[in-house]
């Protein structure tokens, strides 16, 4: 099977799953005990429209298509989704698609950075654990692997804030070591609270108001939402306006980076734990293979045998859990985003539940499903490229 | 008299094709023709050996006879009644099977008593104290001790396990037992014991056996008649002595020549090594299925016309356009 054909097949297989997810989100919206029409018209629901003779509530229901049969509503929902109309958020008073568009990069950036931290930790510990099998280090790291997945991450987040983000009077450890004051890592927000970040939500980038273009003309106006990327493209003009301390792109980047460390570490720790286990098991299995024995018999050094011959093959199955790690990190974001004051999908989802904002809830569920399926698709394709045997199935 | 002459089992044109398809909604792309038109009669009280290479469909044929898998085509009759329309309990009671892997054919979580008693329980034939007595009797018949019944399969050796499997097959007092390579997983010395046990039980109870195996020595030892299978078809069937003395099909020739000869001074038998691999049963060759490997195949005949299972000399039935005559030998091929 050719790679292109393989990819196309995988994408086709996703279609029924996506339809299933929309059925699910639609059913949630049906059961949810909130009348979106009543929320939208609010106090004016009882008013009668002089032209049609109907109340505002009735008009809203008509507008939202709530008076149609369920099947028709579902069809409308699908059509609207396809056209990019994801409904209106009742809490944010904005279209849901915009809410989701602003929130998704926040979570995604955090999750990806989390994996960037988790993978080296997990894989290194896994390799060492396999090399020193049944020795003290192995026992300790196996314990760590289980401990990592057992920690409640919302608690871990706060403990890390305590340790790295506070002074020694409260329990922080940084100050005596690094000579900082009040901790060495920021514990809230995506950037220094003193600066207004040049993104969609700030009026700084609204050229009509400020007259400043925050990004080059070829760049998406208001940035991509991924601050790690955006920070490199902010124009000097905009930089001059955000804060005197952040006069260069690299300073802005560094600020974003340090703000990501704690949230991402929190999210990544569970992935690191499971990675460690998988890596250890996978490497132990590979080390029993004939080609590793052959490599040893050839007289290669042990480190070369392990790093070049064994690890390369042991890493292939590790790819599969990459997709799941992303899903896990997004799920974990629900619990940690409010602690770190990140306004990503997790926070939006929790707000949506508390305010019964069904349209946002559907949107977030849908977008996480899309992200999750896409990352799995990419992993599948990578797997197919790395290990051609998979394509033969 | 008519009872005598009508066979116990009558197989006509039995076929079992397994469909090959990629997914639920994909069309069937091909079929594996595991059993592809087999005719066979089994007489009461005889032992028929079925030999062939692995993958030739002999095990599938066995499952078909037992009614364990649905057939694709053909009829299989037991005492003149189609087995697929027989009452299921009746079928199970009268036809029994002993599997190749004695360990794997027993649930590791059940005691020997439960294993042997299961047929009696599911068919509602015995219960309570009576059941224990029956199990004890069966264990004695197969040469084990009644107190073995509280043990578990993993506590027994391969030969003992096969005896337990035999006891299970005997528990319903069947007329017919299908032995699916019952000895191939055993040591040679244990093989002999089990074969002798089978022999004595058959004589005692007047049982009918089909003995599926790939071992020609075993088949020579136990069978009255032998059927040779190749790619889902029977290519030759004859009385055991007759087949071993005068193989008519080139494939049988090749098989027999592969038996190691214990004596040196005997007429020096050339070993026939077949060239090529067994063709895929999903895509069998046209004409005679053996022609791709046959040393005497004739182009324009063997690869076009499918030979029928015809009677040749000495009661042999052979499916070959050019059967080897009695005493004859195959021309050797030079590689």
């Amino acid at each position, binding site marked *: 099977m050719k790679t292109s054909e393989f990819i196309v097949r995988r994408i086709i297989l996703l279609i029924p799953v996506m339809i299933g997810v929309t059925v699910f*989100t639609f059913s949630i919206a049906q059961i949810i005990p909130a009348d979106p029409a009543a929320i939208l018209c609010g106090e004016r629901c009882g008013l009668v429209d002089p032209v049609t003779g109907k109340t505002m509530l009735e008009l809203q229901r008509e507008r939202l298509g709530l008076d149609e049969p369920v099947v028709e509503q579902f069809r409308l929902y699908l059509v609207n989704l396809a056209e990019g109309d994801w409904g209106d958020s009742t809490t944010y008073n904005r279209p849901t698609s915009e809410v989701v568009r602003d929130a998704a990069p926040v979570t995604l950036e955090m999750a990806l950075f989390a994996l960037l931290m988790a993978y080296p930790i997990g894989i290194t510990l896994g390799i060492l654990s396999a090399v020193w099998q049944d020795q003290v280090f192995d026992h300790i790291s196996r314990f760590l692997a289980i401990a990592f997945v057992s920690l409640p991450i919302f608690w871990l987040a706060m403990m890390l804030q305590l340790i790295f983000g506070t002074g020694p009077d409260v329990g922080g450890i940084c100050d005596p070591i690094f000579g900082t004051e009040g901790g060495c890592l920021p514990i809230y927000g995506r950037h220094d609270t003193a600066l207004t970040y040049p993104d969609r939500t700030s009026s700084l980038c609204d050229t009509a108001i400020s007259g400043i273009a925050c990004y080059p003309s070829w760049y998406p106006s208001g940035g991509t939402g991924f601050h790690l990327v955006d920070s490199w493209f902010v124009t000097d003009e905009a930089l001059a306006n955000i804060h005197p301390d952040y006069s260069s792109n690299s300073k802005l980047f560094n600020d974003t980076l340090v703000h990501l460390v704690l949230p991402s570490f929190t999210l990544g720790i569970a992935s690191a734990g499971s990675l460690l286990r998988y890596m250890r098991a996978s490497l132990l299995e590979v080390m029993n293979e004939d080609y590793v024995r052959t490599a040893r018999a050839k007289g290669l050094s042990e480190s070369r045998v392990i790093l070049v011959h064994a690890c390369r093959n042991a890493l292939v199955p590790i790819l599969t859990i990459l997709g799941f790690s992303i899903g896990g990190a997004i799920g974990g974001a629900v619990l940690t985003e409010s602690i770190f004051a990140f306004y990503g999908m997790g926070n939006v989802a929790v707000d949506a539940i508390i305010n019964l904002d069904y349209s946002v*809830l559907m949107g977030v569920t849908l977008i996480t499903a899309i992200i999750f399926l896409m990352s799995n698709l990419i992993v599948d394709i990578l797997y197919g490229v790395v290990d051609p045997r998979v394509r033969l199935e | 008299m008519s009872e005598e002459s009508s066979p116990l089992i009558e197989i006509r044109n039995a076929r079992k094709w397994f469909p090959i398809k990629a997914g639920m909604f994909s069309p069937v792309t091909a079929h594996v023709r595991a059993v592809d038109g087999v005719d066979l009669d089994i007489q009461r009280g005889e032992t028929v050996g079925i030999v062939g290479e692995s993958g030739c469909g002999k095990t599938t044929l066995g499952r078909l006879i037992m009614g364990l898998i649905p057939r694709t085509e053909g009829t299989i009759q037991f005492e003149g009644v189609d087995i697929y329309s027989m009452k299921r309990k009746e079928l199970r009671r009268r036809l029994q099977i002993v599997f190749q892997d004695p360990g794997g054919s027993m649930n*590791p979580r059940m005691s020997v008593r439960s294993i042997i008693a299961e047929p009696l329980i599911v068919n509602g034939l015995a219960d309570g104290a009576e059941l224990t007595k029956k199990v004890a009797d069966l264990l004695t018949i197969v040469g084990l001790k009644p107190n073995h019944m509280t043990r578990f399969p993993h506590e027994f050796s391969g030969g003992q396990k096969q005896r337990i499997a035999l006891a299970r097959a005997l528990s319903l007092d069947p007329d017919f037992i299908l032995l699916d390579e019952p000895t191939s997983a055993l040591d040679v010395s244990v093989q002999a014991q089990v074969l002798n046990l089978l022999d004595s039980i058959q004589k005692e109870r007047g049982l009918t056996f089909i003995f599926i195996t790939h071992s020609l020595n075993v088949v020579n030892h136990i069978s009255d008649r032998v059927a040779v299978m190749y790619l889902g078809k029977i290519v030759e069937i004859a009385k055991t002595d007759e087949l071993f003395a005068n193989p008519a099909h080139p494939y049988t020739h090749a098989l027999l020549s592969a038996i190691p000869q214990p004596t040196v001074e005997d007429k020096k038998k050339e070993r026939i090594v077949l060239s090529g691999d067994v063709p895929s049963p999903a895509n069998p060759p046209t004409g005679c299925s053996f022609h791709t490997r046959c040393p005497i195949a004739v182009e324009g005949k063997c690869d076009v016309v499918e030979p029928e299972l015809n009677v040749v000399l000495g009661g042999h039935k052979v499916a070959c356009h050019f059967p080897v005559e009695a005493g004859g030998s195959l021309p050797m091929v030079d590689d």
Partner: protein
Amino acid sequence: MSWEDGSEDRAESRRRILERAAQAKYDLQRGWKIYRRSLLAVAGLLMVISISVVSIFADDIAVEHPGRNLQDTRDVWHIDYEPRKAAPFSEECDTRNQKVSLTTLRRWDANGTNALSPVKIAEDNSFYEDILVVTEFKEVVDRNGNSISLDLVYLDPTNNSYFWIADELMENNSVTQIKLIYKFENEEMHHWWMPEGYDVCIFGTNDEGQDLFSKILYGSRVSLTIGFTVATLTVIIGTIIGSISGYFGGRVDEVIMRITDIFFAVPGLILALAFVAALQAIDNLAIPLALAFLPLILMLIVPFRSAIISVFMPGSEDTLSRIEPAALLAVGLVAVLLLPLGLYGIWEGLFETSDTRTWRLFFTFIVISVFAGLLTLDSRMTKNFSIEGFSERALNTLNWKNPYRYLTLRTAIIFFAAIILFSWSDDADNQIVIIDNFDRLWKIQIALVFTGWPGYARLIRGQVLYVKEMTFVEAAKSVGAPSGRIMFRHILPNAWAPLLVAFTLDIGGTILSASGLSFIGLGAEPGAAEWGKLVSDGRAHFPQDYWLVLFPGLAIAYTTLGFNLLGDGLRDVVDPKNRR
């Protein structure tokens, strides 16, 4: 027929039960031998045992009732607590802080009050207080925290538990309330497990003055209950669906697996969130009474499938081929939807006229015998049915001489069906209340079950597919064992081992997820003794009062770690590589 006639059968049944017990003992011994090789696993087991013991004896270990708050003590008119936050092992922890309302004392014309313990909970769930013996009288302050001379309040010389309040203070109408701070010495107030000299608050107290340690102790009950309930329900649902999927295969399998794909496409926590939202309007989980017939109807469909097939798919019944599951499913669904409607009317009609206990018993009996009768009337069964020996067999099934015979799955099912029918038939609203108080804790549990079953379904499906191909299953088929027996006697007993591991790990995972949902405000009610909620309540005082977050979180981590280590150890035990 006398009792003695059955002695042989009884002995046989006894032997069989003993045999099974012996096998179980052997399995356990072998498992323990492997299990104890790992120090971590043993540590995990000890952790799980310790947390279970703590939750069982929480009443005895706890210092005070976790739900104690100002509302609870309202009826104890003469005593009140000043809510006071205290750090672990702090000086404030060691003294009693008792608030006395002088206004109330004046009204009751009393010049003194008893030294009283925090509110405790009695066997019958009522609240009570112990009278404390005061050893050292420390301070008296008024409502605004200003010190009052110690002379104005003094201990009764004969009774170390009674404070007298000087007339000067009683007559001073500007003082409405005073706070007494004292040390006390009571045998029953001192807990044997606490360090010498400390009687309360080793984990500190929260801003309402509630002892955090007690709250965490009681919280273990909530978390363990949620963990076990969710894991058990998930295992049951997952096993049923997964084994159907694996055993029948084909299109049923495809459909079920595609459904699980959808579940796997959304991260579990987000799925649970959405589901909790959808459940928000539901106050009690009840299903219409008519649905009680569902299991019975399903039972009916299975044996009747040969009849169904001969009607809908003529010509196919002469083969032993597997019944087309899709057709079966379609017919089954129609029956499930239509039959209850008809039966519903009958039920109502019957019970309007005679709603007595006898009648209900009789009706239960009738319903079960009708279904039992229908079971035996299956067309394939009648085809194979011989009148000969029928009475004997019928008697055999009712053999009263051998009590061990009744210890079968079938008997148990009939027994439970009887109980359920009998109890449900009592309901006036024509609905079966499954969960009476469907509070938020229940909602997250249901949500977690809902998101968790696909994992088990896939796991058990894989196991069933694997075991199904083993020769002993074919051997069982070849002796005529029915599907149910093959499933329950042959496949499931050999397939459940990885399930046990997953179950144990899932308890830990559930505790984590449930506390997470509580943390974001979806689970436990505010102020409840639930670990996630405690962490979230502590957030308001974080990081200054770190203990309010630290200890509940440690409790979650400890419990989850215990179950995860236990599961990891069990994985070694059930690993086929470690057999024998």
